[in-house]
């Protein structure tokens, strides 16, 4: 198949899937089957682009042009390839998990839920493959809007309030700052195309560039830099599969992915070194990283703790992007994948605990490990991956990040990363310790083994194994991502 049709298909499959899901809404089993089939079809389509990107090609597609120089275009480069594979691959697992969860937790409106999920994946793919900032912005907004009904899913007052915060912050920052930054970039640089090495050098003076960087980083509200991080804990009112795939992978990673795209392909690492605001924003990210970890320590609600942990981990990636060297940028890109696997496992576990026991608070989880050994073992593995301890994949991304900080001579950042790792241990390991080592409450005692439904447990085991597999697979991943910095890829069409 040609490049163009593969890209179109990657976007078209989830859309077609959404329509089929709505059409089959009346027959629950068929609809759920369609959801999984769509996810599998999408993943295989995306996967077919991989060998071309590995060979150094950059598949392109120009959909249409609004006015000269500005159009909706797609170009698949290594980072986008990884993000698209990650989102679509984990969608398969999440789709299976969601079926088990939605039935187990007796949620309503399954059809609407699965349909909007498909749209969210469609927009995530659009973000991954976007060839210029305008296209990226377009899909970024669709992603915000399509996930709003998912956050408000329960329809209770709390859910609606959470969803309003979610929509308010994400729309406000994106329209107020991100769009403004995009418009200003167009005005100053004359183009919005993602180009290796950036488009700003020589066109935008560092004064304007400094302002632009601040506007971009705060405009990308999905990257959850403080003080615009409140939407992420607010989004935790959503059913757990949403938290797992969207608020640990697709939505938040779309945010940091955009940060990386902007820093690497719009500003360019060399140009960023001239900017006064680079270091300022670096320390904002480092502050977020530490502060969010501290807040996470104090959360008793498991999902809230995981949410703040995500805020902190996202800042690892932003930090990596702003350390301004290739090792750190590589580490940041790898962390997108490593953290995704770790955190989705943790969220899956939180959901499984809820489905099996209706418990949401960590202080209630004493002794649960004996009843749900698989779930808590997986939680332990996911936690180790997020913390960055071998033999989990997470170790490699943190390794690169710290190396990058060393190379840049940022001693303070190295220190902050170390402290944060200790904090990670401090808030992720206690739930496991409570579950396995403390005696259960009297009301919970006995009852033997009581895991969540099979459709919940199998995905958990799968992603947990993924965390371990990434320890071995880090090398090919790093090689693929290394292509980001090649300005003229070998064999690419001129």
């Amino acid at each position: 198949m040609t490049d163009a049709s593969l890209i179109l298909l990657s976007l078209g499959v989830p859309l077609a899937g959404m329509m089929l899901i709505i059409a089959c809404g009346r027959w629950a089993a068929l609809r759920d089957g369609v959801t999984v089939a769509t996810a599998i079809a999408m993943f295989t389509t995306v996967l077919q682009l991989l060998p071309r990107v590995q060979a150094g090609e950059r598949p392109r597609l120009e959909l249409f042009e609004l006015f000269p120089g500005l159009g909706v275009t797609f170009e698949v480069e290594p980072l986008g390839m990884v993000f698209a594979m990650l989102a679509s691959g984990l969608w398969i697992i999440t789709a299976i998990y969601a079926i088990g969860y939605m039935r187990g937790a007796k949620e309503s409106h399954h059809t609407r839920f699965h349909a909007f999920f498909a749209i969210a994946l469609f927009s995530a793919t659009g973000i991954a493959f976007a060839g210029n900032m305008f296209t990226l912005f377009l899909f970024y907004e669709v992603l915000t809007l399509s996930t709003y009904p998912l956050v408000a899913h329960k329809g209770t007052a709390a859910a609606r309030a959470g969803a309003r915060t979610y929509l308010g912050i994400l729309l406000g920052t994106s329209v107020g700052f991100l769009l403004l930054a995009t418009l200003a970039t167009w005005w100053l640089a004359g183009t919005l195309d993602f180009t290796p090495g950036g488009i700003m050098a020589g066109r935008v003076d560092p004064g304007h560039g400094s302002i632009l960087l601040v506007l971009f980083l705060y405009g990308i509200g999905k990257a959850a830099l403080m003080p615009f991080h409140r939407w992420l804990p607010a989004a935790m009112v959503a059913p757990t599969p949403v938290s797992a795939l969207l608020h640990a992978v697709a939505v938040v990673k779309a945010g940091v992915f955009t940060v990386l795209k902007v820093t690497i392909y719009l500003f360019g690492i060399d140009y960023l070194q001239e900017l006064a605001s680079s270091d300022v924003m670096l320390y904002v990210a480092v502050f977020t990283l530490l502060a969010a970890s501290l807040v996470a320590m104090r959360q008793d609600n498991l999902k809230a703790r995981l949410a703040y942990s995500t805020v902190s981990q996202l800042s690892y990636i932003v930090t990596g992007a702003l350390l301004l060297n290739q090792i750190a940028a590589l580490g940041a890109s790898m962390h997108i994948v490593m953290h995704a696997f770790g955190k989705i496992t943790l969220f899956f576990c939180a959901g499984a605990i809820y489905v099996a026991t209706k418990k949401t608070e960590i202080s209630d989880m004493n002794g649960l490990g004996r009843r749900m050994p698989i779930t808590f073992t997986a939680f332990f593995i996911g936690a180790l991956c997020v913390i960055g301890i071998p033999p989990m994949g997470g170790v490699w991304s943190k390794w690169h990040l710290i190396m990058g900080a060393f190379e840049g001579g940022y001693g303070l950042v190295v220190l902050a990363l170390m402290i944060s790792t200790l904090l990670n241990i401090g808030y992720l390991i206690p739930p496991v310790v409570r579950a396995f080592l403390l005696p259960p409450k009297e009301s919970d005692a006995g009852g033997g083994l009581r895991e969540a439904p099979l459709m919940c447990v199998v995905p958990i085991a799968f992603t947990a194994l993924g965390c371990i597999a990434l320890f071995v697979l880090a090398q090919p991943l790093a090689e693929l991502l290394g292509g980001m910095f090649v300005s003229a890829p070998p064999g690419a069409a001129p």
Partner: protein
Amino acid sequence: MTEHLPALQVAIGLTAAPVVMMLGRSGRLAWALTTLTCWATFAVALALFFEVSDGSVITYQMGGWAPPWGIEYVIDAANAWVLVIIGMISAVVMPFARRSVEREISASRIAMFYCAFLLANAGLIGITVTADAFNIFVFFEISALASYALIAMGRDRRALISSFQYLIMGTVGTTFLLIGIGFLYIMTGTLNLGDLAARLPEVADTRTIRAAFGFIAVGISLKLALFPLHLWLPNAYTYAPSMVTVFLSATATKVAIYVLLRFVYSVFGFQFSFVDLSMGWVLMPLALLGILVPSLVAVFQTNVKRLLAYSSVAQVGYMILGISFASTLGLMASVMHLFNHAITKAALFMAIGCLVYRLGGISLTHLAGAGQRMPWTMAAFVTAGLSLIGVPLTAGFVTKWHLIQAALEGGYWPIALLLLGTSLLAALYIWKVVEVAYFQTPDDEHAQVKEAPLSMLIPTWVLAGSTVVFGIYGNFTVNSARAAATALMGGAP
């Protein structure tokens, strides 16, 4: 034949009007003749538009009398663009009008209604094509008097008061315009716009000319509803018959803006208007207030027609803001918005017309559950609403993009930010309507309502669809606007 096209543009409508009046017995026949007239006018407008699209200029001497004795018509890229807007809107609104007017106007008055409509239409076209200052005033009065009659025919009795209010304000406006034109005539001895432009520089540094500029600017500002001279507009739009609101909202203020542009850029010239008299600094604060205040007011309206009327005042603010930047890019954004806002607002008011036709009223309480009862109408409303907000891939976005570029070009960063903020305000008031229509259940009275008739739905969708088409393929509007801006900047016709 083709050399008479500029005259035909006006003459077709003016001749058809009395004929339509005489067909008083049959409303249907009057409608049919009016529709044919509007289509013919649109065809002529298109022919003219393509003829000047290569940058040429058509001049036409009325009755063969050469200026300055006779009246001259001049068509260039700028007013051909406005002609297309007027022609297109009237051509699309006529099929829509048949059912809507039959419902809202008593049968005995339908012929008179269409006669007045043709006069208003011909008046607006006349203002646009003529190159004679006094003639502009005459056509302003023709279209205005016809409009007062049209608005007064609204079903609600408050329509009479609104019409009277508009009459007072409109007459003050045109009188100011006439005084200004008189001053110009005293000083230069000519009424031809081209001659005026040539002779004004000699006498520019006199109090009379500056006073003339003031009178003309304020007079036209009244007609185009520049904040805070907009007070006639919300009532007029709210109580006029649906079809009249569609037509006036899409054309009347646009033509007035065109006249302002013609005087400011072509007759007085860029140097006099923007450098000597710093007009940009007068317009900019008014435009900004005009965007902000009516947008805020719109958020709190419960009558959807009035809500959109206030939004129209805000949109005029956008167009004036583009002018106030005193740059080609800003001018382009304004000229572009004439078109983009015309199709957007006409589509919205047509959707409102469909809702009125079925629901009998247009306050938010009438709309509960309309999303389920009238899905196509509401979908058109939402589509055009997105364009009003300025969402990417709609016509409104193409304007907003250029307007913000113009703001950045001038170094007005805070204004760029403000423009994005006011988009959120627009999102807020459109969302208010959407929330009621889609998330509330209808009361018993309106539970059995059906979708609007096809003859109204299709024209609505033609315009709603074109907001998306011109949002995706923005090249046509951008190029036309560039040509029009060049023509305006270039000097007098």
